[in-house]
Structure formats: structure tokens, C-alpha cells
């Protein structure tokens, strides 16, 4: 049988529908320009490799294991889900599922417990994506008898032998992942794509606030937005700032205060509650946060 010498990339692109995913990625995620750029590059690379495979130029499937590094709340998990979608649409994985695990799910508590546990997780993830959050916890250099090493070895083996069945995505803070790779060179060399997630700046965080509030069907009025701006500025300087996750938590607490305010207005002051009232978050709801009077530590004194 003669192989065709031409291939229609456009048709390949259309039938895989990855443009929809990429566009949705652009819409849903604020900022993260370098990440989006890298994902577009990877998607293009995968598409071209697929074309090469079809023409018989390329024999082996490319290595797809990835590593996402970045601070908490920068969208690593969200992007991993999208990545699985892209891989699935291009036919590199059979199931569009992501099994998300941490050290607890992989490493056992006593000798002989780790291998079956890790294998169990791998079996569950087969055909899809295995997402290991906080992957650097797997390796604890201070304890040489730690069972994490065993788990890493099994993972390495599967990453090599079952390359067609499983894509592994590791995630974690950049500096700690750096040490992790330094002490596990085998892991580093098996990972083809390293993607770094930058922190959000204040405008992006504000935009995220709007998106999140919209998705929860709440409105913030103008003063509330300004309050949110101040909140973000202050919150960024305080410890345990987790980017988008902190915004989500702030909104959740604002919703709590709003509910409380509406409840009091209705019961004590016998005010009527309109539909607009129910979805409006005001300045007071945000200004009441303890972030404005010095954060966690200030309250304790």
C-alpha cells in the first residue's frame, strides 16, 4: 500500500475540535499569557506529530509527560483538565479523565504498602491523565528510608513502559520542584514539557473577581470593586496568599456577610428584599474583612 504524500492539516484540526478548547482556555483563564502560548505550541506540535504519524514519517508517539510549576492558585489544576481535553481530542489518550492525586494516595505507611497503592492509582488513571499535585513531597531527602522513593521508581517504570496508556502531569512550587528534579534526574529526563505558571498581577486578580462573581451570579457595585482592589493590594502582602484561590475565599466570605446583612435587614428592620438585593455584594461586605485591620496575626494580639 502506498502512503499518501499530502495531508490536510486544516481538516485534521477541524475534526479534532481543539480550537474550541483553546478558545475556551483563552476565555476562561485570565492572564497566564506564557502558559497559553506554551499550550498552543504543544497543541500545534501534537497536531503535526499526528500528521507525521499518519504519513508514516514518524514511528513513535512523542513523550507527553509534563510538569506544571507555579505558586498556589495560579490555575495548574484547571489547565491540567484542559490539557487532558486537548490530548483526548487529538487521540493521544483514550479517556478524557484526570485522576488527581497527592503523596497520600501514592505512598504507603509501612513496608510493602507503597507498591500496591501506587499501582492501584496507576491502574485507575490508565488511558487518561495522572495529575500529581505537590509532587515534590514524594521525595523527602531528609529521610532516606522514606517510601516515596519506591513510589517514584514505579512511576518512572510506568511512564516508560506504558507511554501509550498514561500521561503523567506533575505539579508543584517552582523552587521545590527544582530540588525534586535535581535529586531525581530520571524523572526530569522523562518529562518533555515544563510549563511555568506566573503569578497574577492586581488587574488580573480583579478581573478574576468579576468572572468568579459572575459565575456565582453575584454582582459587585462600583464601591465594592474599589474595596476589592484595596483588599487585593493588602492581601498580597500578607502571608499564605494563594492568588485566585484567595480571591475565591474572599468572595465566599463576602457572600456569608451579605447573607447575614440581608437576614438582619429582613428580620430586624422589616425591610423588603428584592432579587437585586440578593445578588448584590456591597462595599461593606468586603470592607468587613480582617485583612483590612492587619490580617490574621493582628487579630490574635
Amino acid at each position, binding site marked *: 500500500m502506498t502512503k499518501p504524500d499530502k495531508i490536510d492539516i486544516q481538516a485534521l484540526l477541524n475534526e479534532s475540535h481543539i480550537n474550541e478548547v483553546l478558545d475556551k482556555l483563552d476565555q476562561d483563564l485570565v492572564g497566564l499569557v506564557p502558559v497559553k502560548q506554551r499550550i498552543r505550541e504543544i497543541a500545534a506540535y501534537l497536531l503535526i506529530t499526528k500528521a507525521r504519524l499518519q504519513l508514516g514519517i514518524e514511528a513513535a508517539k512523542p513523550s507527553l509527560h509534563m510538569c506544571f510549576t507555579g505558586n498556589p492558585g495560579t490555575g495548574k489544576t484547571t489547565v491540567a483538565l484542559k490539557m487532558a481535553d486537548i490530548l483526548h481530542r487529538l487521540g493521544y489518550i*483514550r479517556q478524557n479523565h484526570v485522576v488527581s492525586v497527592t503523596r497520600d494516595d501514592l505512598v504507603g505507611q509501612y513496608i510493602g504498602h507503597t507498591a*500496591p497503592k501506587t499501582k492501584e492509582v*496507576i*491502574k*485507575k488513571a490508565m488511558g*487518561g491523565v495522572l495529575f500529581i499535585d505537590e509532587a515534590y513531597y514524594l521525595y523527602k531527602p531528609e529521610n532516606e528510608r522514606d517510601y516515596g522513593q519506591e513510589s517514584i521508581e514505579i512511576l518512572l517504570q510506568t511512564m516508560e513502559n506504558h507511554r501509550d*496508556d*498514561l500521561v503523567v502531569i506533575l505539579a508543584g512550587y517552582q523552587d521545590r520542584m527544582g530540588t525534586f528534579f535535581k535529586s531525581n534526574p530520571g524523572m526530569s529526563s522523562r518529562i518533555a514539557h515544563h510549563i511555568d505558571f506566573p503569578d497574577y498581577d492586581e488587574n488580573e486578580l480583579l478581573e478574576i473577581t468579576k468572572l468568579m462573581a459572575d459565575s456565582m451570579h453575584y454582582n459587585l457595585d462600583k464601591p465594592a470593586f474599589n474595596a476589592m482592589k484595596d483588599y487585593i493590594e493588602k492581601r498580597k502582602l500578607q502571608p499564605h496568599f494563594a492568588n485566585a484561590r484567595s480571591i475565591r475565599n474572599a468572595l465566599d466570605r463576602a457572600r456569608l456577610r451579605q447573607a447575614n446583612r440581608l437576614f438582619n435587614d429582613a428580620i430586624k428592620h422589616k425591610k423588603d428584599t428584592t432579587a437585586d438585593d440578593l445578588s448584590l455584594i456591597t462595599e461593606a461586605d468586603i470592607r468587613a474583612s480582617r485583612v483590612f485591620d492587619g490580617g490574621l496575626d493582628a487579630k490574635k494580639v
Partner: protein
Amino acid sequence: MMTNPNKMVTQGQFSFLPPLTDAQITAQIKYALGKGWALSVEYTDDPHPRNTYWEMFGAPMFDLKDPAGILMEINNCRKTFPNHYIRVMAFSSVRGVESPTMSYIVNRPKNEPGFGLVRQETAGRNIRYTIHSYATDKPEGERY
């Protein structure tokens, strides 16, 4: 030979067919997973048809989505017990069913001697029949 056609024990599904290839096994697993059944791998070296409870090779695999994981376990079992009978079972947990829905052999010993018929003469010239596997004359683990 009437008692041992094709020199293959016939029990479970597909047992009159030539042995399933890995691709065929994968297709069968996919079918079972699509129905939401949990699969498990079991082995034995006692081929008697009334031997319903085989040894489990690991726990039944719930929550799996892709056949590759189960095929991996089948291959592990083949490596550990190359000369045993190995079967794949599918279990339906639907209320009211709660029982195995599929069962087929995926590995056999190289040489299957089959069964002999033992006739026991009892009172009044009656005869009782017993099916006896030649393989089980030897102790467990040394049969094939």
C-alpha cells in the same frame, strides 16, 4: 476423544473458541467497563466444573475507566502463574443483580489432560458417576 475435545477445558464464555488474543480481551473488557461492571482476575489449577471459587489475584478493580489497567493485571497474573487457569470476571453491582455477569478464561496450562469418568457401584446395581480431573491427582501447585 469425547471427554476432552480440542484438549481444552470448556467453561465460561468463549471457551469453544480458540484462545482470545490480547486485543480481543481488551475489547471484552471495554464492553464490561461500558456497562459499569467491576472486573477481577482469578486463577486456579483445579479445572473441575464445580470449582466455582477460584483464587483472587489482587482485589477486584472498581472505578477503572480504561481496559489497559486490567490487561496489565492479567499480564502480571500470567507472569506469576504461567501454567494455571486464569479467568476474568465481570461483576455487576446493580441492585437485584449483584452477581458475576461475565467470566472467561484468558490463560490455560500448556497440556490439559482432561477428565476421567469414575463409576461407583452402589446398592441394587445402581451406578454413581463422578467426573475426576487427571490433573488433580497431584498436589496443588504441581499439577501442570
